[in-house]
């Protein structure tokens, strides 16, 4: 098929009331005007030949429309590389719920964006990445800084547009934002050849592409309601259950359904476990909260899933890190009910006995209202007593009188001082799991982590983006020594823009999670995961990047005072914590194991005799 943009039947609003409607603008000016119309207050990006016209248009826009205080209305934040820019945009999107935007150049600029685009796809994060492309006539000639972005990104993004017809540029851009934020959100890439950026075009102010298949499916999902008969069937099954459990995923956060979830859970007294991505979707300090389940979930969350007889999955996708062995997940559940906005998630891993495809907050509010109207008042007190006992008996814990610093003690200290109200971003690995386990999250969009892709290096740029989205919040990057290395260039970005981001590096001299697996499954052969010979001085590195407050913490007795001092600093601050290199993440459900085989470690009570762990490498990952 020829690359032919979709211009037929453009939806034109009857009369665009845009003040610039009918004006002739360049493609680049149109890009910037659409970004302004979308309400963007910050952009992230790295320049280069093929995107220069857009960069120039941003400069001119900012010069022509200064804010009252003289600052730029649409500052363009420059990272160390494009992966950083796109993770900043993703951090902005995750913390705010709005679409994050990154502007990158062609070729290497755009290929550096691949990882964050895939990461955002896997975690359903709305992003628009605008990439410059070589001029239309040069596409396919192996031109300087040319890469086949529509092909590459086509496999990783929610959608990608290659704008070969300049006349469709404005409609394409507006449609990109619509696609990124609607339905199950995701990243959209718009690849714009340089000649299209320079083309003189008539600005309309409202054009969008028809994308009729997408729009009709979206309308169906958004209009979907749960019929009375389906509500009745749902409550009949729930009425037969005596041990119901809500399994809440990232969909609760992206749908803005945490209030609806709170109301539903409390209306009928049903406890809630969350996935890694669902953290913050349900207040962890709520009495019904059973916290995170899964491979490194709380023992009580996993035991509750093992014991329950009814699972209500909300915007959760039964990921392998949660489910382990699908046939043995929730083994006593007689009913699995599932609500998701994505029809492809229904029954993908576990068959659903009852399901609804639609928007989560609407669906939950409908069920709550129906249950109340029909006097649904079950008595789950025995079950609630049971899970309360699980929570007490199998509570999270670690060695509290260690001579080396235990990472969880540091996290507990930060949590205490910030009252569990900070925005937390993480890298990937042990520190990520400790943060997920030991922080409180009272609200959604305070927990920013690369869940599905597991991208090391996510934490620092995501924190930067989040700080731009939420100037009013303390933003803390909880990182590992290996993860932060991956995007350590962004330390300088923190100080360049004077962001009060707090960076914590839990340094265990290596890839701790890899070592943990090597201990368990590879007889302790630490192939390429030990970094104790590395010479990097993180504190001096941070100082070199302009951090005035940069300290190393080694004494367990100084945790509280140092952390307090660190968090109180008014500006960028960097804290390296030298932690016990042998600290492990527990509980752990090994890959391919069931919850019954969960290893709880030395400090968390297990309810079964520990099962001998596999000592041979397995095919599971």
């Amino acid at each position, binding site marked *: *098929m*020829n*690359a*032919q*943009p*979709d*211009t*037929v*039947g453009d939806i034109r609003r009857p009369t665009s009331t845009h003040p610039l409607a009918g004006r002739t603008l360049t493609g680049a000016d149109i890009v910037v005007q659409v970004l302004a119309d979308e309400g963007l207050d910050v952009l992230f990006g790295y320049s280069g030949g093929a995107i220069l016209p857009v960069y120039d248009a941003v400069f001119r826009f900012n010069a022509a429309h200064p804010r009252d205080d003289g600052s730029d209305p649409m500052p363009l934040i420059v990272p160390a590389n494009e992966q950083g820019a796109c993770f900043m945009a993703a951090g902005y999107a995750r913390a705010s719920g709005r679409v994050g935007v990154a502007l990158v150049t062609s070729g290497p600029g755009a290929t550096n964006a691949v990882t964050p685009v895939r990461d955002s796809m896997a975690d359903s994060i709305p992003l628009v990445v605008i990439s410059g492309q070589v001029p239309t006539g040069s596409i396919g000639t192996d031109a300087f800084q040319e890469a086949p972005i*529509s*092909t590459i990104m*086509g*496999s990783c993004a*929610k*959608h*990608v*547009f*290659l704008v*070969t017809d300049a006349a469709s540029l404005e409609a394409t851009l507006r449609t990109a934002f619509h*696609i990124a934020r609607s339905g*199950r959100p995701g990243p959209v890439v718009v690849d714009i050849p340089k000649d299209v950026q320079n083309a003189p075009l008539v600005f309309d102010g409202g054009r969008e592409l*028809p*994308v*009729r*298949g*997408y729009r009709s*499916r979206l309308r169906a999902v958004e209009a979907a309601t749960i019929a009375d008969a389906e509500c009745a069937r749902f409550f009949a099954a729930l009425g037969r259950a005596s041990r119901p459990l809500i399994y809440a995923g990232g969909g609760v956060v992206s749908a803005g359904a945490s209030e609806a979830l709170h109301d539903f859970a409390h209306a009928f007294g049903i406890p809630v476990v969350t996935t890694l991505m669902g953290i913050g979707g349900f207040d962890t300090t709520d009495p019904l909260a059973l916290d995170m389940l899964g491979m490194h979930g709380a023992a009580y969350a996993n035991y509750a899933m093992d014991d329950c007889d009814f699972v209500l999955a909300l915007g959760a996708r039964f990921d392998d890190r949660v489910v382990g062995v699908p046939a043995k997940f929730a083994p006593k559940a007689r009913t699995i009910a599932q609500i998701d906005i*994505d*029809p*492809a998630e229904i029954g*993908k891993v576990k068959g659903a006995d009852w399901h609804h495809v639609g928007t989560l907050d609407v669906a939950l509010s409908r069920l709550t209202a129906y249950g109340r109207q029909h006097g649904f008042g079950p008595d789950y007190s025995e079950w609630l007593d049971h899970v309360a006992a699980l929570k007490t008996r199998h509570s999270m814990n670690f060695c509290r009188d260690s001579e080396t610093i235990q990472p969880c003690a540091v996290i507990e200290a930060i949590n205490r001082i910030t009252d569990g109200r900070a925005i937390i971003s993480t890298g990937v690995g042990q520190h990520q799991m400790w943060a997920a386990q030991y922080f409180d999250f009272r609200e959604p969009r305070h927990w920013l982590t690369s869940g599905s892709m597991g991208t090391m290096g996510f934490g620092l740029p995501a924190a930067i983006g989040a700080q731009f989205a939420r100037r009013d919040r303390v933003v803390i990057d909880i990182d590992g020594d290996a993860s932060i290395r991956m995007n350590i260039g962004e330390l300088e970005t923190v100080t360049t823009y004077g962001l009060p981001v707090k960076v914590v590096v839990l340094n265990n001299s290596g890839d701790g999670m890899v070592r943990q697996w090597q201990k368990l499954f590879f007889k302790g052969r630490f192939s390429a995961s030990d970094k104790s010979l590395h010479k990097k001085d993180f504190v001096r590195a941070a100082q070199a990047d302009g951090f005035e407050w940069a300290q190393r913490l080694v004494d367990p007795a100084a945790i509280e005072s140092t952390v307090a001092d660190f968090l109180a600093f008014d500006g960028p601050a960097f804290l390296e914590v030298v932690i016990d290199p042998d600290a492990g993440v527990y509980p752990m459900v090994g890959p391919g194991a069931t919850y019954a085989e969960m290893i709880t470690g030395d400090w968390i009570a297990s309810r079964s005799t520990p099962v001998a762990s596999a000592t041979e490498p397995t095919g599971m990952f």
Partner: protein
Amino acid sequence: MRHLISMLLQNEAGALARVAGLFASRGYNIESLTVAATLHEDASRLTLVVFGDDAVVEQIVKQSSKLVDVIEIAELTGREHVERELLVARIDGDVSAVDALLARFGARLLQRQGSHSVVEYTGRADEIDLILDAMHRVGELVDHARSGIAAIEQPLVAA
């Protein structure tokens, strides 16, 4: 099991690659694929045949229906439908035997030079297999090309 999937696809850069990629990433070979214009200049009809586990193919179809470029998608396997494939072949063999074969199958002669006959035939995929077998028996099958399946759903018509 054999799955016959029909899609209406927006003409856009990479649309076909995205659909093919969903099947390829699960390790399924696409058995046949036809793409051609429709009356709408912004859309193409795509017909795809793939062999695979029912549940997995159903999941891929669900994933395909999420692609922004996909306007409509239907699995025709379990529905009433008509499907046809075109065969163009060159046979080197006794012309009277070839003519007899053409008559028996209802195939057409397009060109003849000496003992070389170029013929065309349309039918279901299994009928194409049959005529190819028969051609082997009447002469040497020098060259041939199959178009892949084109199919439309057969609406249920009240008698």
